[in-house]
């Protein structure tokens, strides 16, 4: 009961803050909660909005697939081969620190305008955390488990399915949760600069044409979707870690 009350208090706090900002800054900067919800509901019923949403989702799907598969594969390789892992880890951590937005002109020159630039943007944002989490998960498998596998004469396949997978899965799920959010962020940024379609384009277009109502509504939809997906992954994450 108190938990429900606390959650409601948080939501109320956010709405209050939103209203306060709206009262202070006026409708040239942001629209109020009620108006935004109404406009967002209206947007959700329109076909052209869904075309943009679909463009974002398909680019996001490709980018996430690449981030996840390549990220986990690289993480496993670097984690199993200790020396490569030790060499690569600080380099990857540094890459993570770079503001990747600044690479966008390079991305445009290499990939051109369109879906591939968006996907590339999503991948450079999302893949590194997946690699880092997988790497540390594999590196931190207790040696005792591996020795047990050897003692029991497990085949490499059996070791992988019965021992490695369960041991590293929780960490990989955590990495995927962060990779998921960052890939989405990357795709949105890619759309803001390198595209004429998608939700990121709707946002930047709204900003440039001072269409505050639409921008705020699209941002609300994007944030809601992102937080909801994160919540679902977080629940999965908790269950995997128990």
């Amino acid at each position, binding site marked *: 009961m108190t938990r429900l009350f*606390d959650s409601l208090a*948080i939501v109320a706090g956010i709405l209050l803050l939103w209203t306060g900002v709206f009262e202070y800054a006026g409708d040239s900067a942001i629209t109020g909660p009620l108006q935004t919800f109404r406009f967002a509901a209206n947007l959700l019923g329109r076909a052209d909005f869904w075309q943009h949403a679909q463009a974002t989702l398909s680019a996001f799907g490709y980018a996430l697939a690449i981030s996840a598969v390549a990220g986990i594969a690289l993480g496993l390789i670097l984690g199993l081969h200790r*020396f490569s892992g030790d060499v690569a880890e*600080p380099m990857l951590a540094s890459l993570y620190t770079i503001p990747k*937005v600044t690479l966008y002109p390079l991305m445009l*020159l290499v990939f051109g305008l369109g879906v591939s630039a968006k996907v590339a943007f999503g991948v450079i944002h999302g893949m590194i955390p997946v690699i880092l989490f997988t790497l540390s998960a594999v590196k931190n498998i207790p040696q005792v488990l591996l020795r047990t596998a050897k003692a029991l004469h497990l085949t490499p396949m059996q070791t992988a399915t019965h021992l490695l997978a369960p041991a590293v899965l929780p960490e990989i799920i955590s990495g995927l949760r962060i990779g998921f*959010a960052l890939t989405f962020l990357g795709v*949105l940024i890619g759309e803001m600069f390198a595209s004429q379609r998608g939700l990121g384009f709707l946002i930047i277009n709204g900003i440039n044409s001072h269409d505050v109502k639409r921008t705020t509504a699209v941002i609300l939809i994007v944030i809601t979707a992102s*937080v909801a997906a994160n919540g679902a992954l*977080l629940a999965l994450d908790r269950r995997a870690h128990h």
Partner: protein
Amino acid sequence: MTREGWTRLGLVAAGIAALEALCRTKVIKPLTLVPPSRMVHDLAGLLIAGDIFDDIGQTAIEVGGAFFLAIVLGVLMGAAIQATPRLRRAVAPVLASWYAVPSFVFYPLLVALFGLSTSPLIAIGVLSATPAMVVATIGGLDRVPRVLLRAARIHRLTAAQTLWLITLPSALPSLFTGLKLSFAYAFIGVIAGEFILSGGGIGYGIAYAYESFETPKMYALMLLVLIVAVGVNGALHAWEGRLLQRRQR
């Protein structure tokens, strides 16, 4: 230097050499990428001419201000949240989903709130960097062994002594992770903000150079961003290593 360190250096050198070769032989077109040696040369030229000092200064103030505020706010909020279990349970979902929200979408709003100056950029840096510091502070304080705190009470240490001798050393590894992440997020937030909507700073310089087809200048500034990001990250990493080593002794 360790074997890993040398290998890393070798890999980076080989990568740069390969890029240089590809650019020199025109496999990569000069319009797409200028050779790394040219980037260094151009960057040196820009630094000597001094034209970009204003931009560098602005970005440094913004990143430094955001980083500092994020540390102060993050540690204070983290300590408050860690001390009150109910607050902690309530804000946990907010902290967990903070980075799922692409914070740069708030940038136009911040410009409307603060005007087009350095303050909205500092604000976006603080918004993206603070939660990492909050999470790190909570994690660090969780790791302080109860038994040591009890020992501190038995020895009648003052609050300041307890903080300095017990709490801080135990929380240090986690706090350092927070510092590194906070810097990264403040830096990314500020540069991205400048890039999207600003009249100055390095991020703006890159966007401006790109739009006016000054490819060499663009790459020189990108190199600068790369050097700063990697340099500060490396410095914090080295500092962390030294402090942890001292603790083990």
